[in-house]
């Protein structure tokens, strides 16, 4: 993966039911974006039950859908990494993320690990010190 896995934020503990619900509405929203608006009433109820911040979660979900749309156009490795990061902000762990209808980029570059060791002025599409801001 492009950036150290430590950059994936710690996901607050949520019930299996909520995670399943999130996977379902996100998978549905990826295929049919207009459906997400209809899911929000249920989402709000789940958030209230589990003391989750509904406003923050919906904002993060909207950003996630935007990133998915950008990724689907580019199939860019870097964007795929940030999709995983943003999925964590939407309370999805790695297993839940794998259930979403998102095709990984063709090469999830083993060679990208090399970028940690040394570099040149050639473009490397990642940030020096990205880990300082959780990227």
């Amino acid at each position: 993966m492009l950036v150290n896995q430590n950059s994936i934020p710690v996901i607050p503990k949520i019930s299996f039911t909520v995670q399943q619900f999130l996977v379902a509405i996100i998978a549905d929203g990826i295929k049919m974006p207009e459906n997400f608006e209809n899911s929000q009433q249920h989402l709000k109820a789940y958030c209230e039950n589990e003391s989750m911040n509904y406003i923050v979660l919906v904002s993060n979900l909207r950003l996630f859908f935007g990133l998915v749309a950008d990724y689907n156009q580019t199939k860019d490795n870097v964007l795929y990494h940030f999709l995983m990061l943003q999925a964590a902000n939407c309370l999805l762990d790695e297993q839940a993320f794998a259930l979403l209808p998102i095709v990984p980029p063709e090469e999830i570059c083993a060679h990208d690990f090399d970028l940690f060791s040394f570099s040149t002025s050639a473009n490397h599409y990642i940030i020096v010190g990205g880990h300082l801001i959780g990227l």
Partner: protein
Amino acid sequence: MQQTSYKAFHTLWTKPVTSSGNRFEMNDAEMLTMIVSALMWRKYNGSIKLYTDKEGYDFVSKNNLFELWDNGIDTDILENNCYPIEPQVFWAAGKLIALEGCQTPCVMLDTDLIVMKPIANLLEESVITVLHPEALEPNVYLSPDLLKKPTGFTFPDYYNWGVLPANTAFVYIRDEKFKRFYIEESKRFMFRNNEMPAEMVSQMVFAEQRMLAMCADHFGLPVNHLLIEPFSLSNELVIHLWGFKESLRKSNNLQTLFAKQLLAKVIGELINFPFFKRYVETHYPDFLITDNRLVYGKLL
């Protein structure tokens, strides 16, 4: 005890963009990074000035950024020089022209680089400090026989082609005599060197990054580095967008994610700059500042 204050400068040289008929612009992430770069420098390390040209000044004006550089804005140096430098080939030459006009000791700071902490302890014993060493990648740092040169130009015998180039996104120079020598050598290479390199970068990185290391070697001056390995997770000092700007340009949503992460990190440190608070409230209405913390998701 009062910490030493270092004078830094940013450069916005628009000629590489405008000379090809385009309008100079920055995306939201680039602009936010430049703002945080200037303010973090002011908070921890000293004052900062902007060198720009007329188009750059118009950009600053249009975006109400005048307050950002506490040491003012200079347009004379970049607007009024008539150096025969091809901006498409030497797209970062504006930095070197600005450096020439800046009295040492000074820090040349790229607008996409943020120094997160005080670094006086790293600079006080140093004559030259740069961001980090660069590997001698042969496709980037071409051998002297492959580099495109101005007509009649020869490389002096004292150039040491074995020294590692310096990443110059951050440069501190204390010695005026060294600075003048470095700049004169760079200009000698850049002037009337108009043929575009096939790989787009070799002449610029030679004139700026390799030349600095070669000149320091010639002077017998050690070059210190803020970082030894740029992508090491032990780096607690610097954020540098570098090639990530290309990824940001592809996705407005990635820009939002980047802004969210960066703002969450620096909001508590910069909120006392009224300019910054105003900027965030104006440009990031989805972010709510509460008790110097940032909450994403204000407006739904």
